[in-house]
């Protein structure tokens, strides 16, 4: 069984966002990039567990980005995975990204495609679903547990106001969140092995993006905290009622 894990490089959570070029771009100078935690901690680690359990034969990683994403991809290859593919394109649009990945994945014979529930940079959470649609596959989102029973994936997922366990015949695209697996730290052997793992660069399919980001803005500065006497909670309740108007 072949698994494809869709991964994306994102600015580290603690990154301070700085705008440039008249607020039309993000200044990435000095930014530390990491693998999107939902992709790494949950989707990739679950794929590796399935390989270790002898259920999966191959675990491939795929990303869309320029050469500057390679150090991060090498780093996660140290956790495991047989090879990585980089589609050589810039994309800020999930439909565009999904089309690049679909063009590659449709020839790959993947039985299971895993991704994170969303990337922490653009917070769309839409690429995996679009990929499923483009590949004519089923999709299960917000997965908290993934088991395989023969050719069927059994997935526990969050639904509106509860939880549901679904069964779905492979192939399927699953978007992973907390619960699917536990974060791992690469060991020395993994780091050494990652250096020589194949990292293929593939030219992007011809895709016309249907959205463009025309500008950015920073949120307005917080007015500052109003401190309340810890012995006077009546005052806090009054403020929440009369000033904040939330109760």
């Amino acid at each position: 069984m072949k698994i494809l894990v869709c991964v994306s490089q994102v600015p580290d959570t603690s990154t301070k966002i700085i705008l440039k070029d008249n607020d039309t771009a993000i200044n990435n100078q000095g930014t530390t990039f990491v693998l999107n935690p939902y992709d790494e901690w949950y989707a990739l680690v679950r794929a590796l567990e399935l390989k270790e359990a002898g259920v999966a034969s191959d675990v491939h990683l795929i990303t869309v980005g320029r050469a500057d994403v390679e150090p991060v991809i090498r780093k996660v290859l140290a956790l495991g995975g047989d090879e990585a593919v980089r589609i050589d394109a810039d994309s800020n649009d999930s439909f565009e990204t999904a089309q690049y990945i679909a063009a590659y994945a449709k020839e790959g014979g993947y039985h299971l495609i895993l991704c994170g529930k969303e990337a922490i940079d653009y917070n769309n959470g839409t690429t995996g679903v679009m990929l499923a649609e483009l590949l004519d596959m089923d999709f299960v989102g917000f997965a908290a547990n993934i088991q395989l029973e023969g050719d069927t994936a059994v997935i526990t997922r969050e639904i509106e106001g509860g939880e549901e366990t679904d069964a779905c015949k492979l192939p399927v695209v699953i978007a992973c969140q907390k619960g699917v697996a536990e974060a791992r730290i690469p060991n020395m052997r993994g780091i050494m092995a990652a250096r020589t793992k194949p990292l293929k660069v593939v030219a992007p399919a011809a895709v016309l993006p249907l959205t463009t980001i025309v500008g950015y803005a920073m949120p307005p500065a917080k007015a500052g905290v109003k401190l309340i006497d810890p012995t006077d909670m009546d005052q806090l309740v009054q403020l929440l009622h009369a000033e904040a108007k939330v109760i």
Partner: protein
Amino acid sequence: MSVLVLVEHTEGIIKAKNFEAVQYAATIAKQMGITATAVVFGAVADAEMEKLGAYGATKVLHVADKRLDDLHGRAYAAAVTAAAKKEDSNIIITLHDINGRAVAPRVAVQLNAGLVAGALSYPDTEKGFVVKRAVFSGKAFAFVNITSDVKVIMLMPNTFPVAEGSGKATIEKLDVAFADKDFNVKVRSLDKVTGEIPLSDARLVVSGGRGMKGPENWGLIEDLAKELGAATACSRPVADAHWRPHHEHVGQTGGTIRPDLYIAAGISGAIQHLAGVNGSKTIVVINKDPEAPFFKAANYGVVGDVMDVLPRLTEAVKKFKQHK
């Protein structure tokens, strides 16, 4: 031609956030001099669907197929696409929630439409079709221009206040020819949280962190939540230590919420936590450490021991409710 909006219901009851989506769709429709049509799936009473008229929908397309009572992303998308074609809709609205996220991306692919997720504004049509949204987990906003003819917008719930007007929507049945593959995902078991307010829908949330010291003290959080009619949440260390269930974890690797009021008790406010809650309209932080970073993101701060402050706050809320 009309603006099409997907409306969800829970066991036949349409929730407030869906009224918000209808109002959003109707406002856009009005701007463009057209009408708004809602599409509703599964078992819902006509009287419930007629209510959508009060939020600006003139028509409801009802796809009554019982199989749609469970979330089947493929079937939902097929039905929305069928409705969009019937209504000749160039603008399709869903919420940016669990169901919306299973449906809207498929619809966008089917209709070759540009999509904006997590929309926070009405489209600005002065220079194109520009929608504002949060990026980098709320640390910035992006303005996204949709350049395709057909456009899909996923509205972030709890963005606009909802005002009930008058009027009844007319209801039309819509038959959709589903394929077998639309129901490939089979539900084995279902565990709905009953009696509690689902965290993602809650207007008020009381949340606890490591400063609560242990699960035995969670009664203080629950008492306050009960008095306020709020949902409960927690920080990551609390969920990792199994003091609270994982679905209560809000923050970067847990859930993202945007309630009207977020009360954080004994949470220091690491950036990963803020990423999950910084869309909250009002934030109250209770912490005995005056240097806790969360105070910088708070509207109201109480420097004090959560064990003393929480019961006092619960009492104050009780008193307030009695005198209201």
